[in-house]
């Protein structure tokens, strides 16, 4: 597995929403909800991302239910590990930002 993966916002949310099995439209709705309407996944983009995540083995398509033609997806163990590493990377980004920007603000307050 690649050590230095940077996920796009779309992929990050797709993995996050697939901790529970969901079909395409469910992923779109959940992502929009989680991001407060900021991240909207368009159908074509999502479809392409789901296929490439399946090929990478980060998510898998569940066996199709004969009652519905909608395919459901779920995160794999590999995908879960990627998601946790991404979280650590994002945490570092935020910590660095807060430390340096926070320091600036304190400095300004001292004046």
């Amino acid at each position: 597995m690649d050590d230095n993966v940077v996920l796009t916002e779309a992929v990050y949310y797709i993995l996050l929403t697939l901790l529970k099995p969901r079909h395409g439209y469910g992923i779109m709705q959940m992502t929009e909800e989680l991001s407060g309407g900021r991240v909207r996944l368009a159908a074509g983009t999502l479809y392409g991302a789901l296929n490439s995540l399946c090929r990478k083995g980060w998510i898998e398509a569940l066996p199709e239910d004969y009652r519905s033609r909608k395919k459901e997806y779920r995160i794999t163990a590999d995908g879960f590990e990627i998601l946790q590493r991404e979280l650590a990377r994002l945490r570092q980004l935020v910590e660095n930002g807060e430390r340096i920007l926070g320091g600036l603000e304190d400095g300004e307050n001292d004046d």
Partner: protein
Amino acid sequence: MARMMIKRWFWAWDFEEEEVWLNEMAYQGWALDKVGFCKYYFKSYEPGEYVVRLQMLENNPAMAESQEYIAFVEDTGAEYIGSVARWVYFRKKAADGRFELFSDISSMMNQLRRIINLALFCMVLNLLLGINALQYSPFGILNLALAVILAYGGYRLLLKKKRLEKKRILRE
């Protein structure tokens, strides 16, 4: 319900203009209902009731991969209108939420790449056909003229792709 058919030709590289035109029609209350080669069939609805989107698929729309994709888009609340060659048309009620097919630059670039490849393939084909045909009849000049138009279209698409690439450096 009133219906109307309009004959219109769009070059593949004018797909954005085509989509803008279809949405202007929908905005005036004429939503795309069926498509044919250079033919657009509209039905009257409430003005702005529908949003129309189109795209070029990787494969023929009749193939299993394409059918799976079309079903996927339909599952998100859109309606499949039909296809012309590898182009497919969808519409969705504006009240059912925003409707886009692509939400990131890479998938837009993939779409552009597909169209560029097709334009360049047709250009080379017409160039060869034209050169070959000129040995027997003057009509080969028509193929050559088409090749020139396709080269121009390919160039415009490449410019579009360049602009997207620049945007991507900052955004992704």
